[in-house]
């Protein structure tokens, strides 16, 4: 299973999303979520949204392994 995290405004769209999912890439996660959460999937397609695996920024085709942590990151606004 892959653990899912949604930060910033993405969290507002992901309140009903299960904490874990079976998928082989972040792109596949986005595709799987589109069925039940079309608004979230649309947000995840925004080009500014980054994805990380185990706290490293990666591409959407990064292979995932069981127990991995995938986080979806909207543009940051700290400081």
């Amino acid at each position, binding site marked *: 299973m892959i653990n899912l*995290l949604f*930060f*910033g*405004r993405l*969290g*507002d769209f992901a309140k009903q999303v299960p904490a874990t999912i079976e998928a082989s890439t972040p792109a596949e996660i986005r595709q799987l979520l589109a069925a039940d959460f079309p608004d979230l999937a649309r947000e995840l397609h925004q080009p*500014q949204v980054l994805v*990380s695996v185990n*706290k490293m920024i990666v591409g959407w085709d990064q292979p995932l392994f069981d127990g991995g942590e995938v*986080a979806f*990151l*909207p*543009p*940051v*606004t*700290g*400081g």
Partner: protein
Amino acid sequence: MSMTTRIRIQQQDFDLAEEYQLLRQSDSAVGAVVTFSGLVRDFELVSELGSELGSELGSELDRGVDRQDQSSIKSSIDLLSLQHYPGMTESLLEAIVEQANQRWNLIATTVIHRVGDLAPKDQIVLVGVASQHRADAFEAAQFLMDYLKTQATFWKSVRRNGEQQWIESKASDQQAAARWDGSDDE
């Protein structure tokens, strides 16, 4: 020269004087200390808010109204809230400090960022740099803030009239960070 780095992400406030003393005392070679502290304003320009109203007024700002007009287009906030990605934020900040250390001759660096709920006038962030000469400290402090704002995994939201709204990232912050790209040094 070995470099002392202090990176902290915390809910509690920090003491600028104390952090300054730590930077000042870090080495007898220190000849310059630059600190920057960021505070919560009692308003955010509505162009920074992700609302319909925000984008409407934001495009008015883009059409070039003068500064005074801009500051009148504001929206008072009751509370600012900062979320971050524990574990990732710390390693991103370490990487940013490491980049600064490679570009400038730094003796000590402090980055403190608060998370959780903050009120107007509260301190949010501290960046402090100690170096032998002032140019290194000035430039590195700006670099650290520019990169922190565009790369470190923090997200701000504000509460206005009981409603939470996420702050949008600003093109001006991206531009500020982009000026450090390309050349190895200024």
